[in-house]
């Protein structure tokens, strides 16, 4: 068990993934055949022994409530463990990072753990947070920043202390003492600050000892449709798959029957979830639960999300089909590998 609370925060809610995040947060993106992006982050925390995890939400959090519930599927619905979804309290308008994070205090103040780990919600990485705590203590830091190599976006002095951050720097998580976290947020609120990174961290470089822990293993940060597409496709590579699934990744379980491969099925190089029916040709694709693929269908390089139906004689290439899409008989949709086409949830084509 780690003496830390987990807080997952959508620092990147403004990223635009076309129709993919029109009705959901980035954290709720379906990924890898049966997961949502957030499953990787929560699972990683659970696997490290973080037993109390909160998800701060801003908008479009309905799918998160359905998917995560009380954290049963992550083993968090038990004594001494908890999973909380913290919705915004304000009723309308844009809500600042600082006020959203302040909402998290209502949960974090109930615990006695020494640390809080605030994780971003759009990266997939495998990391043991115990190493970050060790690093934090060794550096006698105020804040430890877990981030991959940022090609100069994180500027440190000779002692490794962070002295500046460029606005588009990429990080995974922040480790901070719980009391300091509460104090910084209270102070920021008093000053009317809005952006946690720019107003709370960057403006306080002189008062805070922030250290960068360099993450060097495999990761993927989903910040564009192309990145989303490529990450999914990379799971077809056994080497990458083994890295991504090095530890258990939990997700909501569903009562699907096994996948049925019918007479006309010709499936090669695919990742396929349970509950599908396949009677056509499917190559180099990621197929989510409950997808139905008719006969004489030709699918190549596609991501097909849950409960989508592909009728007979359809040809699809380089397409991302969101959930519950229906592609009618005889349709032909072709995108470019460099620019995959997204078909929105529940669309009928």
């Amino acid at each position, binding site marked *: 068990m780690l003496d830390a609370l987990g807080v997952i925060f959508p620092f990147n809610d403004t990223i635009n993934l076309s129709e993919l995040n029109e009705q959901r947060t980035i954290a709720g993106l379906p990924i890898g055949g049966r997961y949502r992006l957030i499953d990787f982050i929560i699972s990683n925390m659970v696997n490290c022994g973080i037993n109390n995890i909160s998800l701060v939400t801003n908008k479009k959090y309905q799918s998160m409530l359905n998917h995560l519930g009380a954290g049963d599927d992550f083993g968090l619905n038990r004594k001494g463990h908890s999973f909380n979804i913290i919705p915004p309290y304000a009723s309308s308008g844009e809500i600042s990072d600082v006020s959203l994070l302040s909402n998290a205090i209502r949960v974090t103040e109930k615990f006695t753990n020494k640390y809080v780990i605030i994780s971003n919600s759009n990266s997939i990485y495998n990391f043991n947070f115990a190493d970050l705590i060790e690093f934090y203590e060794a550096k006698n830091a105020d804040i430890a920043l877990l981030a991959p190599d940022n090609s100069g976006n994180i500027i440190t002095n000779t002692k490794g202390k962070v002295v500046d951050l460029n606005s588009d720097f990429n990080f995974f998580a922040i480790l901070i003492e719980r009391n300091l976290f509460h104090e910084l947020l209270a102070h920021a609120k008093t000053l009317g600050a809005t952006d946690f990174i720019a107003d709370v961290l960057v403006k306080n470089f002189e008062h805070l000892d922030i250290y960068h822990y360099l993450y060097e293993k495999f990761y993927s940060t989903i910040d564009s449709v192309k990145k989303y597409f490529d990450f999914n496709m990379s799971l077809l590579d056994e080497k990458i798959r083994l890295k991504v699934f090095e530890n258990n990744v939990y997700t909501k379980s569903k*009562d699907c029957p*096994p996948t049925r491969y019918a007479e*006309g099925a010709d499936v090669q190089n695919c990742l396929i979830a349970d509950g599908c029916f396949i009677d056509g040709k499917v190559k180099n694709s990621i197929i989510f639960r409950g997808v139905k693929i008719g006969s004489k269908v030709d699918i190549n390089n596609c991501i097909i999300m849950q409960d989508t139906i592909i009728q007979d004689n359809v040809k699809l290439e380089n397409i991302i089909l969101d959930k519950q899409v229906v592609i009618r008989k005889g349709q032909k949709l072709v995108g470019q590998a460099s620019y995959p086409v997204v078909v929105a949830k529940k669309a009928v084509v």
Partner: protein
Amino acid sequence: MSIECIAMILAGGQGKRLSGLTKDNSKPAIPFAGKYKIIDFTLTNCAHSNLNIIGILTQYQPLKLNSHIGNGSPWGYNSNSDGIFVLPPHSSHDSCEWYKGTANAIYQNMNFIDQYNPKYVVILSGDHVYKMDYSKLIDFHKQKGGAATIATISVPTADAHRFGIIEANNFNEITNFVEKPNIPRSNLASMGVYVFTTEILKRYLMLDENNTHSKHDFGKNIIPAMMQNNERLYAYNFDGYWKDVGTINSYYEANMDALNPDSQLNIDDENWKIYTRTEARIPQIIYKNAKVNNSFVTENTTVRGIVENSIVSPYVSIEPDVVIKNSIIHNNVIIEKGCIIEDSIISEGAHIGKNCHIGNTFVETPEFYDEYIDNGLTLVSPNVFICDDVVIGKNSVVSNDITNMPNDIGGVAIDKTSTRSSNVC
């Protein structure tokens, strides 16, 4: 506390006729149709029938069954108003004994039933494959007001001698019941699914307990005793799919029925989802050059070979140049390169070495013959290791590891071109 009806599931039998399949597992916990266990059907029925309290009577090899059931959450039995309770044999103040029969198992758990003071008790088996709404059966029983109602199903006349055969009048009242008759007088078979009015059941269980000649069995003793005393018993006709998977053959057939999209079993039914315990598993991976047709494949399985008309469970590895036909592959099985598996059941944890041929039509392997398998199937028992180049014929059961080139086992045909076996084994 009082509820109207509770369910007791008999899940303690050894299932001898399933041979190696039940070597270290009880019948209800044997994998079925890829991702299920046999008992999932009965538990799913209970869940869909709104039965809130379930007792499961276990005895033979219950460990896997216990861990499968856990707190009952996969079937929705973890709320504070309902529950699944595993009831193993236990010692009491003045006695200590195993369950002597199905009736005795219920008798020994009378205190469990009494806690809930139910008007009715449903008695079920943990080894049947079917989808049945018990609430209709219970309503029928209440409406008829008899001592017991037996669910029945029409069976082919040729098979009738294997069942408890019932004759009923136009009011569904049972006029005759014969367990496994030599000359069946009807084709209405008891499914082993009963509703009893609790007070009457208790009376007969006590009488039966004191009868030293009794086998303490519902079909053999309790029902005949009730018939003899002119209790009113009714037959409830069920017309869906139902199969008692008590033999290797019926187990195989039921699996193939699940695989058949036109079968009445229809495990894909959205309105009657089959619930089971699932783990965190990654999706199945179908590699380049694989070919999968008319088959079920489940999560966390990797396929690099050809799978035809077969069922593949989770955590299975099927290597390149493997051909699997008309077979059932259980969890955690490894099938190495170049194997041919036909008409076979490969049980949990088995490991088949390279270029083996299991279920070969053209060789006979009498040293693997088994009294419980005679229908052209071949069974590899759980956790068995078979080294490279071994050929096993039909009607065979491999119960122990084969770690050497089987020169000393007469009858096993050997691929004479191979010399690699000694390195591997």
